[in-house]
């Protein structure tokens, strides 16, 4: 009897819950509507962002066509350049972005950098450039002429091998020039194959390996000019190579 009575009140929700429930539903709907209005489409598909933004980024037009895209029509020039020292320099480095040119070669022609200011962006001397990279001092290197007057930009083959190591190692040459070793030739200490001057990486110059090299001039009993300071080879510096302590291109004695 009692049990039955109790089941009768099963949907008799306590009075105080009704306004609460309505409030609850209102708040939830408000939140859902707010979310619907505020959160942009595609937000949250892949993460806390609009995945449409990826498509937006992809839609950006391309200006640079890429290294091999010129090959289709300028294969002769490509071939010429690729057997030269400029093989690593893409056409568009000098001619600028050329995607438009490829789309319609007659409508849009790329520029060519003919003035003297351009090449020194890469070839002007700067001690921060790696030693071995060909560098000139623009103010001293054949001033008054365009670089392309003498050098073919697509095949910058030199008319003859550089005479000075400073063509590619000016940083070292500059240091040596104002040091105690100013009078020494580079080849006094380095054995350099002729190919090193034209194709440097195929025949690297040798670096000294024995301290006897320095002893040629600096040993107590060396057959060299009297003014050269001498050391006792056996004890001075002991087991170290001389250039573990003295920079050979600018030796100091302190």
């Amino acid at each position, binding site marked *: 009897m009692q049990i039955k009575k*109790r*089941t009768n009140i099963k949907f008799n929700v306590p009075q105080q819950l009704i306004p609460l429930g309505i409030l609850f539903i209102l708040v939830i709907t408000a939140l859902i509507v707010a979310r619907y209005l505020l959160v942009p489409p595609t*937000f949250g598909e892949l993460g806390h962002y609009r995945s449409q*933004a990826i498509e937006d980024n992809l*839609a950006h*037009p*391309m200006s640079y066509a890429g290294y091999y895209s010129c090959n289709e029509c300028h294969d002769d020039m490509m071939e010429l350049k690729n057997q030269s020292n400029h093989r690593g320099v893409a056409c568009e480095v000098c001619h600028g972005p050329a995607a438009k040119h490829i789309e319609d070669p007659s409508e849009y022609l790329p520029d060519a950098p003919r003035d003297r200011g351009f090449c020194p*962006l890469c070839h002007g001397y*700067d001690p921060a450039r790696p030693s071995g990279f060909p560098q000139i001092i623009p103010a001293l290197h054949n001033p008054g002429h365009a670089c392309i007057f003498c050098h073919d930009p697509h095949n910058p083959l030199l008319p003859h091998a550089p005479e000075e190591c400073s063509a590619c190692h000016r940083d070292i040459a500059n240091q040596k020039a104002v040091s105690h070793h100013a009078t020494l030739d580079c080849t006094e200490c380095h054995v350099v194959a002729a190919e090193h001057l034209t194709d440097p990486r195929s025949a690297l110059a040798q670096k000294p390996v024995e301290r006897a090299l320095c002893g040629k001039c600096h040993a107590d009993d060396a057959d060299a000019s009297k003014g050269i300071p001498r050391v006792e080879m056996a004890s001075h510096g002991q087991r170290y190579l001389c250039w573990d302590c003295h920079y050979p291109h600018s030796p100091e004695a302190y």
Partner: protein
Amino acid sequence: MSEKNTKILRRDFLKAASRLIPGGLLFIMAPGTQALLAAVEGKEYDPSEHNYAMGVDIHKCIGCGRCADACKKENDVPREPTFFRTWVERYAIPSEGEARVDSPNGGIDGFPEVKDDRDIMRSFFVPKLCNHCTNAPCVQVCPVGATFTSPDGVVLVDREYCVGCRYCIQACPYGARYLHPEEHVADKCTFCYHRIREGLLPACVEVCPTKARVFGEVGQRSSPMHRFLRLNDVTVLKSWLNTKPKVYYAGADGEVR
């Protein structure tokens, strides 16, 4: 009320709720299912299979600034010398004293001539760009989710949604972001996302004459990136911040920040 009674009440409430909640859940989860479907449909490119990275070899950089120039041309970055997605810094470390760093117009017009290089012990160039951090501080601080890491590991900006609050610019430890003067949105390197997704190189890598910049995927064995990581002792900038950058440097000095 007896215990049994409350149990029944509870069960009824759950029953009612079970009719409401799935609807709500469906509403909230709908976008997620859409993405799932899209992923199944778009089989050609699965971003989660890619993880892009860049390598920068300090020893090879000649500081010609062509990368900074090409970047501006490819990405319509304003030409004024305060806005860069990538730029080149020149370091000169003397035998004694502080390292000197300069980067006039990001290196685009070349660097001023060094009048006296005698006291320079060592000197080199450092190209810089967004590091596409795995733990990107800029992504963490963005209040609206307008900067994010794409599934293929590139940190991108949502230009539509960015409100230009500059938080991300402040948060970036590498100074890689700027506020676009016309569009008033944050802007920065995207690894040329529009190019790499087409299989092309980023513009800066495209024009680098000495392969000082290489680009590829971490984890893909046959890629210049893998060789770069295999051959070099690589570092990342400001590693102590635990941002986990995806731009790796070879030969970067401790002075480089």
